[in-house]
Structure formats: structure tokens, C-alpha cells
């Protein structure tokens, strides 16, 4: 399987290990992985802010870069959701581009969804030992149906115990630029999430979207919790990176 990895702009800048972990997992699943070098961002921040022209420019660039691969995989439900659930609307006024966008959407997957349902990864190399609680990111959950996939993969790890938090499906308050525009509401929502997560007593809060994870970790640390780890699911599944 010839797979293109879409690193996502947040992983590129904030946590490159998430992308390296995704790379390792995809290779283990038997994929030939390429990382198109000119990639930047899917355009979601502009799209959500109402700047359609900028979003369209970036969507066009993504389509140029990623069409032609058998699959496109992203370590983010939110960015994968942008391509799968929103490019069609964004490109609707340009029939030629729309056709290409639809084709790209059909072969685009969030990482855990791809590993479970397409690549059918049998075993995972991660060596995390302890308890984790999983935060279901909104776009992944409600736009792509990502719920059991990460849990199924984590379940393959012998020393991992999953402790479900209450309101796992409730927003952490990130919401992209919302977290800057409405900082105090965003913080309140992050607080609720941290309380629910910490109430499980888990060693780590794990999720599939870096935006949520930065938000949750940021609130935890500000409140003085230096102990609870906040990890991307790819990092947990991949284990040591070379």
C-alpha cells in the first residue's frame, strides 16, 4: 500500500515525534510511506474563521500534493475530517476541483482508523505500562466515527489498562481559534475535562488530536499537575522512536 503521510501543521511545529510515530506504525503495517515535502496545512483555521478564499488556496495545494496516492493518512481526526467532511463543500463551485476533492476525501484516513480498518495492523510495538484514559476528540468522533479504533489498538498492548472517564465525548474547549478568542470559557471547558480525566486516576491522558492535547496539558500544568502524562495515541502505540 502506497501511503502519503500528512504530518499536520501542529505536529510539524509542536511535536514532530507524533509524525515519526505515525511513520513507524504505518511501516510496521506494511505500507510504503511517503511524506510529500512541500506540505503545510489543510486550511482548516481559515475555513473555520470564514476566510473561504484562503482555505480554498490551501485545499487546492493539498489536493495537488496528495492526489495520486493510494491512501492519505493523518495523525489527527480534525485535519482528516477537514479533508473528508468539508473539502467537498469548500470546492463546490469548481466542478473539476470538486471531483478531485471527492476522490481525495475517499482515500483519506485518520491514523487509528486506517491502522484498524484498512491496514489491519495485528500487533503494536508500544511499551507503555500503566493506566490511560482516552479523550475522544470532537471532529474525529462526530465527523469520522473514531471511537473504538484507538481503544482497539491500545487494547493490544499487554501492560495498558484503559480507564474510561465520564464525559469522554465532551469537548475539551480547544476549538482552534476559539481557545484564543474566548480564553476563559476555553479554560473552563479544559478544567472540566482535566477533572474528569484525573478522577479516573490514570497515569496518562491520551487522544488523537494535538490541539486538544496541548489544551489539556496546558491546563493540567498550570494547575500544578506535573505527573499526569498527556500523550498522542501514535506516541503510545509506537513506543521508542529511532
Amino acid at each position: 500500500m502506497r501511503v502519503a503521510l500528512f504530518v499536520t501543521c501542529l505536529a510539524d511545529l509542536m511535536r514532530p515525534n507524533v509524525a515519526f510515530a505515525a511513520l513507524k506504525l504505518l511501516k510496521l503495517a506494511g505500507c510504503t510511506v511517503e511524506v510529500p515535502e512541500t506540505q503545510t496545512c489543510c486550511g482548516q483555521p481559515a475555513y473555520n474563521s470564514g476566510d473561504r478564499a484562503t482555505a480554498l488556496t490551501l485545499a487546492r495545494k493539498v489536493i495537488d500534493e496528495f492526489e495520486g496516492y493510494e491512501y492519505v493518512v493523518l495523525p489527527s481526526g480534525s485535519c482528516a475530517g477537514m479533508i473528508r467532511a468539508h473539502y467537498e463543500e469548500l470546492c463546490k463551485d469548481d466542478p473539476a476541483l470538486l471531483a478531485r476533492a471527492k476522490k481525495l476525501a475517499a482515500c483519506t484516513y485518520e491514523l487509528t482508523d486506517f491502522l484498524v480498518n484498512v491496514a489491519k495492523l495485528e500487533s503494536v510495538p508500544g511499551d507503555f505500562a500503566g493506566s490511560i484514559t482516552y479523550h475522544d476528540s470532537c471532529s474525529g468522533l462526530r465527523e469520522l466515527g473514531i471511537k473504538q479504533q484507538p481503544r482497539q489498538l491500545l487494547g493490544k498492548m499487554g501492560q495498558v489498562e484503559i480507564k474510561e472517564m465520564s464525559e469522554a465525548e465532551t469537548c475539551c474547549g480547544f476549538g482552534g481559534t476559539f481557545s484564543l478568542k474566548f480564553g476563559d470559557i476555553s479554560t473552563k471547558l479544559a478544567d472540566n475535562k482535566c477533572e474528569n480525566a484525573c478522577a479516573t486516576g490514570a497515569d496518562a491522558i491520551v487522544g488523537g488530536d494535538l490541539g486538544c492535547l496541548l489544551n489539556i496539558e496546558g491546563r493540567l500544568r498550570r494547575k500544578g499537575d506535573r505527573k499526569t502524562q498527556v500523550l498522542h495515541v501514535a506516541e503510545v502505540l509506537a513506543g521508542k522512536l529511532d
Partner: protein
Amino acid sequence: MEIHSNDFKARAREALANPNLQKALKLVQVKFVPGRAAAAAEFGDFEALRDAGRDIRNRALENLDLWLERFEQEAIRRGARVHWARDAAEANAIIVGIAQANGVKKVVKSKSMVSEECGLNDALEAAGVTPVETDLGEYILQINDHEPPSHIVAPVIHKTRDEVSDLFHAKHGKPRTEDIGALCREAREILRPHFLSADMGISGANFLVAETGSTVIVTNEGNGRLCTTVPRIHVALTGIEKVVPTLEDLSVLLRLLPRSATGQPITNYVSMNTGVAGSGDSDGPEQFHIVLLDNGRSRVLGSELKEMLRCIRCGACMNHCPVYQAVGGHAYGWVYPGPMGSVLTPSYAGMEHAHELPHTATGCGQCSAVCPVRIPLPELMRKEREMQVEAGLRPWQERLSLKLWGWSASQSWLYGIGTAIAARFLKRLGGADKLIHRLPLGGGWTDGRDFPAPAGKTFRELYRARKNLH
């Protein structure tokens, strides 16, 4: 009603710091959210019911003019009078006119959000007519210096029992009690004589049925039925979008509405008002006026936001909205709060008075996941943001930063340099504990949270170095 939607930020900050409100809002999460989930699960195929509800509302809206004309004909045939109001001022003038023509001094009101939209009580009072709110929640608000409702189904959800006890004690002059039954009895003793002495009753309408010319109200308190049947004149005020073609259609929506709103399979009362009292009838009004309000609805019908008109006012979107749960309804600054309000308010009250609202959601999608008629609320809010950008309504700093960011992200080499610099800069800011406590231009984030610092090099740099190594 006066609009304060552009003060959302300040109002939300106050709401977050108000312990009574925070305590009261917990009820939304512990009562309405699990209630709706249990009712949907118990029903069986609730998803198919939502599909049917969406289709019925769409069918009504596709030929809204024809269904409204049919409704008018059927209502008139049964003795009702139908009035058309282009805006709130016209609706108020029509109702004040009816009151004055009939020498009405006192009106008993059943809960109506459209009357809040029109500011009807103020108009009645200005004309010397006393409106008495008889829904318990609305009554509480009225005696609390005409406080506006904070929820479309549970108007007084922002108050704790303690606060209501204090209020009743102060206004009724009776010994303070916290017993809910006793509080209800107190209100009832005051309200009963009003029903009997009022010259006119005003209600809203959850639905209008075209084939019978009926107005329908869905309520848990007997006040609605008293308002619509005891006084000699009944005025029903509602929006033009509320019409459904048939009773069969109504039966589907009546299954959806209470389950989505409060988790009830059916409300205590479902009242259908059809025509005036006949000669042999023991009760019912002599005059039945139906006031149908546009006030921006026909403009929405012709716009990209038209799906919003499917709304059946259940409140599920706000009940499930994490932002509403955190700040309550008053922060939104007008009649309709939460996600449905964030879409409707700019349309009805003018975008310039409500430009903050389409941004007041995280886009989590929980609202559209529970909407009984599948309104894509986050998508409609996003469309409103597009309208703002097109109209040049966003602050120049936001427009400029989006354009700059977009331009650099479309120039791959430049973007690579920019992110490499940013990664190093942010790493330095993070210091030894790898946490940024104060982010330049990012105070919205770091006022309440740290910002975890990056490792110092971008994936692109590291990957390229690794590839060159091999």
C-alpha cells in the same frame, strides 16, 4: 427585546465568576442531557424519527407560502382571525390594537419566546394593558424586575431554588420556604384569580397545522390551557415558519419535541386550539386571533441559513453545548441563546448587533448530533462567519493575520523557514520546564493555561536530516 449580544465576552466572564449560576447550570447536565439520551434510547429507532422530522420540516418550508395560505383559510373557516406581521413593531401594534378595540385591561400570558422577541410586554404596558406571565418560570422572571429568560424551554434555569425562595419571600411577603410544592402553591394562589379576571389570553404556538387551521402548544403546566380557553379573547403569536402540513406530520414532531427537550415521552399538556367556541361549547374564546410574525424569517428562507428554520425550539442544542453549559443563556444577550441563538440572532436582529455570536462555539458538533431535525448548526455558524468576512465585519488584525498565515502556508519554502524560527523561539520561551507561561499575543491562551513548548526543530527539518543521513 433590547440586544446585548456584542457584550458576550464580558457577560460570559461574569457568568463564569457567578457561583449561584454555576450551581444552577449543573441541572442542565444532570437532568436534560441524560434525560434526552434515555428517552431516545427507549424510543427505539430515534435516528429514523429524526430523519422523518427533518423531512417534514423541509417539506413545509419548501412550500411555506402555500401551507401558510392553507392554514389561514382553514383557521378563518373555523372562526379565527389571522393577522400578518412583518416585524416586531407590527405584531405589537396588532395585539395592542386587539386589546384596545375590546377594552382589555389585563392579559394572562402563556410562555412565548416570540413575544420576548417582539418585546410585547413592554408594548402592552405602554398602552395601559397589564400582562401577567403565568408560566411558573416566566412568572418568577416577571416579578424579578422583568428579568429576561435564559433558556427557551426552561426560562429560569439560571436560578437556584434558594434564589427563588428569597424572591418569593420578598415579593409575596410570606414566610420563606424552600419546599418546591409550597412555592408552586404560592404562585398558583396568586395566578388563579388572574386567569378568571383577565380579558385576554396570549399564547405562543409550537406548531401550526395547515389542514385544520389549529395552533398547538406543548407545555407542562396547566396555565397554557387556562390562558387559551378561559378569557373571552385568545391571541396566539408565533413565527411563520412553525407551520406543518398535516396532523400526521404533527404526530411525528410531537414524538420528537419533548424527548429532545426534557426527555419526556410526552408533556403534561398538548393543546390544540382550533377556531372559536361554538354555540354549544361550554368553554373556549369568543375571539381567536392568530398573529403570524416574519421578522427576518423570510430573509433566512432565501439564504444559505434556511435549514435553521426547521428548528422546533426544543433547546437540545443549548442543553448539550459545552459553552452554554459553562456560561448560561444571558451571556448571549438576546432572546435565543446557545447554538440555535447564535445562528438566529444575527439573522433576526442584524449581524452588526450580534457579530460575536457565530464565534461563540468550539465547533464540537454536539448540538447537531442531538438536533431532532438535524440542523447542521456548526456549519451554519461557519457560514455566518463567511458572511462576516465577505462584508468586512471582522477586525483588521484577524483578517491580516489570516491572510499572512495563509500566504506563507501556500509558499512551502517560506513556511518551512517560518516554522523553523517559531519552533526555536517557542522552545526558548519554554525554558527549563518546557512550558510557556506567557505567550506574546496569546494571552487568551496563557491567562488560564500554560502552553507546552515544542522540541525546537520542526518535523520537516528532522525528517530531511534523517533522509540525508540514509
